[in-house]
């Protein structure tokens, strides 16, 4: 692991988190409603992360998988907010919404990854994984 890659992850992560922050300001997840904004962020981020191995120029430049995958998309998506939203829904007695949110996010993200994977080969995905684009 090179120091420049750590810096790249920091830069990408900062950009992804700011994008998430701006989206949640524009479309706030509030109260006991299904948290659609965070749901959409996590599904979109998972889809794009799974698309990256298909792009040859990203695989050819070893700094790009950490910058774009681990950094940008890792910073864009969030599991801490998902946990906190679920906790809050459960604590306020909205167990059905919480359950739908927990399972629905996971299912939608897996469908998104499966769809994006159709554009890349297993070898390309292994190469991207070895370049630490999906940490």
């Amino acid at each position, binding site marked *: *692991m090179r120091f420049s*890659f*750590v*810096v790249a*992850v*920091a*830069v*990408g*992560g*900062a*950009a*992804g*988190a*700011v994008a*998430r*922050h*701006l989206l*949640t300001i524009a479309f706030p997840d509030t109260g006991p409603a299904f948290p659609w904004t965070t749901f959409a962020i*996590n599904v979109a*981020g*998972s889809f*794009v*992360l*799974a698309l990256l191995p298909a792009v040859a120029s990203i695989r050819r430049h070893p700094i790009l998988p*950490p910058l774009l*995958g*681990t*950094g940008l*998309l*890792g*910073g*864009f*998506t*969030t*599991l*801490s*907010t*998902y*946990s*906190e939203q*679920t*906790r*809050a829904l*459960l*604590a306020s007695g909205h167990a059905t919404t919480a359950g739908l949110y*927990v399972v629905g*996010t*996971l299912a939608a*993200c*897996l469908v*998104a*990854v*499966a769809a994006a*994977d159709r554009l890349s080969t297993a070898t390309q*995905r292994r190469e991207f*994984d070895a370049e*630490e684009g*999906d*940490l």
Partner: protein
Amino acid sequence: MTVLLVALGAAVGAPARYVAGHLLDERWPWGTVLVNWAGSFLLGLLVARGVSGDPLALLGTGFCGGLTTYSALAVHVHDRGPRLGSAVALVTLVPAIALCALGFRLGTG
């Protein structure tokens, strides 16, 4: 200003996740699992402490959001197939939500 705090927090959280994954992720992605647990616990604690505004932007939206990831989880679960993938999903998500609740409880106590 708030946007800069989000960026700063994530500029620490995301590399911490990268280092944890680099050191600990194998067939079983312990590094990613651990940072997702830690970020969920910390965010529950922060919310319970009533942290809001700029401090929450830095530590919650920025650091915890940058430290945790859903995209890598989704790819790990999918890549590992139905059996191991389901185990990774369960062992990530159930404790993450429980730890978030524990953090919240400790924060209010």
